[in-house]
């Protein structure tokens, strides 16, 4: 997470990398660049609190066992961190609405890799539906990347497409993140403390 002055929006912006999330009630602007990954924006416009994550599931999404699998848990974790952060900043659970962005087909490969974008998008919609958080808008799929800006207080999202010629660094960053996410999911042993 880095904070910098962005010449496009002429304001200070917090940039989120894959795996990161942020939430604020101070009218902050978040940005992120998406290839296959998905960003979910969650906000409560009445209380002027909002936030965004940027994640990718480390593997396939298959059947009804989904939420009991490691992939499902990984996605739930990414969503829960964001929702908890928005609530901690003063958002009310019952007022939360969502926007879903990303899931472009930008990672090279076939089989599992080629299904990654759809998996991520399907997961996001399914999760939000189950949690009863309405999706008020979305911009997903396609074979391009996206740069988005979130105005956290209003939930307003600005989006710019990134064409194929500029996607290589985005895809590389996401591939590194995916490898890290797989390792994280395997390091679960350290997570239990018995008193």
């Amino acid at each position, binding site marked *: 997470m880095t904070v910098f002055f962005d010449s496009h929006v002429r304001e200070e912006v917090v940039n989120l990398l894959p795996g990161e999330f942020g939430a604020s009630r101070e009218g902050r602007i978040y940005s992120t660049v998406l290839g296959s990954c998905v960003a979910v924006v969650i906000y409560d416009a009445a209380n002027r609190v909002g936030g965004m994550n940027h994640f990718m599931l480390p593997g396939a999404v298959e059947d009804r*066992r989904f*939420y*009991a*699998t*490691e992939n*499902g*848990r*990984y996605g*739930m*974790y990414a969503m*829960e*961190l964001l929702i*908890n952060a928005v*609530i*901690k900043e003063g958002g009310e*659970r019952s007022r939360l609405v969502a926007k879903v962005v990303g899931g472009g087909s930008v990672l090279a490969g076939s089989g599992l890799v080629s299904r990654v974008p759809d998996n991520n998008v399907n997961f996001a919609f399914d*999760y939000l539906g*189950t*949690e*009863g958080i309405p999706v008020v808008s979305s911009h997903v799929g396609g074979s391009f990347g996206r740069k988005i800006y979130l105005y956290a207080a209003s939930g307003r999202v600005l989006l710019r497409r990134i064409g194929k010629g500029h996607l290589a660094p985005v895809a590389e960053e996401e591939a590194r993140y995916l490898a890290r996410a797989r390792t*994280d*999911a395997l390091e*679960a*042993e350290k*997570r*239990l*403390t*018995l*008193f």
Partner: protein
Amino acid sequence: MAKTVLIVDDSPTLRASVDFTLGEVGYRVLHAQNGKEALELLAQFDGNGEEIGMIITDVNMPVMDGISFIKEVKRTPFKFVPILVMTTEAQETMKNEGRTVGASGWLVKPFKPEQLLNVVAKLAS
């Protein structure tokens, strides 16, 4: 008779996940959305430990959070039922608070399904 586990979490997704993982190996899973609802549910049981084998609770929940819930449980006939905290909170200060109020364990998300099964088998026995 199947062991019964009470899951207390405001996320229906999380409850469904726990229900599936534990249900598949024969546990009966009861659901509550927050600490208050869980206490009301517990009040319908007699508290001799045979009916509720274990409680799993989140920390951050509306109405009544997990730490307050554990404190309340310790004042009921269910005070000897093992309580596992299952949360995204990983800070030592939070874990210590859990230990102080009487939780039996602290599991940080995300974790492996087998890990949940192992800890439930250990604590619920």
